[in-house]
């Protein structure tokens, strides 16, 4: 059985690092999907950098740094060791080229465009809560009719989870 390659945006990695995003039932639903062995969850190293910035901000505002950093290291090891997760290297000219195309369309967030470009190259679906990012990828397809990418599904977590039922 072939596995569906699902690129997950930063938000969905956060629970592994001890951070609770504002998405109802994310932890329980993720646990359930992990038991199904139908998906590979791709993620970008830029998401890890975004999480690190949050950890640094929290420590700066008085949260327990030892606990946050311990959890951060545990999550890095767990992600690396688990075959159901796959890191998509962004030090890659193909990923940079598409990221640049997306920025030229007006999406100024470099990290977002790296996540989108990684998903276009390596995944069947992109899961994100970021609507502007979704729109810019649609615009990319509209303006590049002969693009060598297949259209990928771009879903919010809620839409994605429903689609797996």
């Amino acid at each position, binding site marked *: 059985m072939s596995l569906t390659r699902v690129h997950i945006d*930063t*938000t969905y990695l956060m629970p592994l690092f001890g951070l*609770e995003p504002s998405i109802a039932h994310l932890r329980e639903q993720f*646990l359930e999907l992990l038991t199904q062995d139908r998906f590979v969850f791709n993620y970008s190293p830029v998401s890890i950098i975004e999480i690190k910035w949050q950890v640094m901000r*929290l420590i700066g505002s008085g949260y*327990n740094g030892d606990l*946050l950093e311990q959890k951060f290291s545990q999550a890095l090891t*767990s992600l690396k*060791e*688990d075959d159901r997760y796959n890191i998509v290297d962004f030090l890659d000219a193909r990923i940079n080229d598409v990221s640049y195309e997306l920025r030229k369309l007006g999406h100024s967030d470099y990290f977002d465009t790296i996540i989108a470009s990684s998903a276009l190259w390596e995944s069947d679906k992109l899961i994100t809560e970021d609507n502007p990012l979704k729109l810019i990828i649609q615009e990319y397809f509209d303006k590049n009719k002969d693009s060598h990418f297949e259209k990928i599904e771009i879903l919010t977590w809620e839409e994605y989870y429903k689609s797996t039922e």
Partner: protein
Amino acid sequence: MVSEEFGKVGSKGELYPPRKIREALGLYPNSRIRYTISPKGYLIVERVISVEDLLVSPPLAKVSTEEIEKLSESMQKKGENEFD
């Protein structure tokens, strides 16, 4: 706290941590472990926490998707402004 125990290498190269060590590290059948050789030649054995264990452990802080987005954009802007 230093925990020291001694053992032997098995005939096929297996390493069996003694019970006290297993208990101290929380090693149970099928636990995943990571072996690392340090630059000074020490063997480091660590239990790898599963993704499932991380997902059921209590969160340390709440962070919304908007906060992630906002801080990331502001950090990137900072980088861009360095060149102004």
